[in-house]
């Protein structure tokens, strides 16, 4: 599992942005694009190269108190995003 004191940052050349025509956030990278669902987007919004995983969990747990197991979801996301090389850890 990703240690909570790691700071995720987008891989160089990867960009997260809102696309009005698709009405969703996307991750853009060389010649590719991934449409993100709402929960992935909420996590990506907090990946700024400053906040560690613990801070991201705290932030989202506070904003979405009714979502059970949100920390597990965030850990799972970090695993996938890192395995796909979308993010690096500082």
């Amino acid at each position, binding site marked *: 599992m990703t240690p909570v004191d790691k700071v995720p940052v987008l891989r160089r*050349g*990867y*960009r997260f942005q809102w696309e*009005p025509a*698709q009405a969703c956030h996307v991750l853009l990278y*060389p*010649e590719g694009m991934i449409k993100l669902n709402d929960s992935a987007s909420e996590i990506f919004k907090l990946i700024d190269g400053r906040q560690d995983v613990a801070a991201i969990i705290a932030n989202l747990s506070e904003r979405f108190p009714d979502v059970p197991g949100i920390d597990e979801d965030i850990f799972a996301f970090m695993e996938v995003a890192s395995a796909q*090389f979308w993010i690096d850890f500082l």
Partner: protein
Amino acid sequence: MLSSGSTFSKVASAKPNVPKPGPPLWLLAELTYRCPLQCPYCSNPLDFAKHGKELTTAQWIEVFRQSREMGAAQLGFSGGEPLVRQDLAELIKAARDMGYYTNLITSGIGLTEKRIAEFSEAGLDHIQISFQAADEEVNNMLAGSKKAFAQKLAMARAVKAHGYPMVLNFVTHRHNIDRIERIIDLCLELEADFVELATCQFYGWAELNRAGLLPTRAQLANAERITNQYRARLQAQNHPCKLIFVTPDYYEERPKACMNGWANLFLDITPDGTALPCHSARQLPVEFPNVLEHSISHIWNESFGFNRFRGDDWMPEPCRSCDEKHKDFGGCRCQAFMLTGDASNADPVCSKSAHHGVILAAREEAERASQGMQALTMRNEKASRLIVKV
């Protein structure tokens, strides 16, 4: 924003079975057909010499603006060699400011440290450099340039030094595919983030030279096996480099879902402003609109050319009654046209096609072919004028 509701109702009432297209997410700007190299598998049309006109800086920027409004997010600067456009940095900046992810697709010829820095300043997101081979001699022969290989190596290193993500593209064919190990090693040495090992697709100049380019089935299987070994090794090392292996559809029994469906997410604007749903559609007997006469919204949603093969009403048998027609859309319209004479036919790659024999014959020819590289027709203006009366 595009008023898609009203546009749709117009299209829908005229052609009830043409589904509303999604946005043109991918915009390819073929800025010019000029190129210092002469690759015999170039995807440009054979008659490029008669389409010499190019859109101005302002006209290109207007294309970017309208396409972005329609939802385009990825923008590829291509050609020809896009670096011959002196306004490239200006075009990059305009596109990046609109929110595009900007990709420069180049041979590396004409690139300098200074221009790399200039593009970086303009906001360029990524650079793709294409190689002809991993060996200097073969590379230069295929490129038709003695200095090409050394220049590409230097520029690939400079691209990484400037912090760009880098894609390296190798078009593979019977003359270089057996060196796939050396190709992948070179890409890893140059720290490519993505490597495209793209077996030649037979359009444009590649179709003209097909017999001299199509690898044998054994060559292809060997290359794929080696690529998979590298993939396993990279994964074990948690190495970020991704290897993308594109097989030629000539060895398939079902056609590719070409462009993910006709005019479905890809919009190609050629140097003179003619809009196409794919790189090679210009050769089809279909009239395509030009951005100098029509808005991108009209071109994408309403033009005849872009609606010509949307949906499935146009399909004859065997596609019409095929339960896979929504999976592969009957394959590639250009390939159907080139190999059967009718763009509506099933792509002959499909074993259900009455014309599948053409593909089988090409495979057999690949087993027997013994022509050297010297026999390939190089892509240049002189050959273009000779082949197609301009």
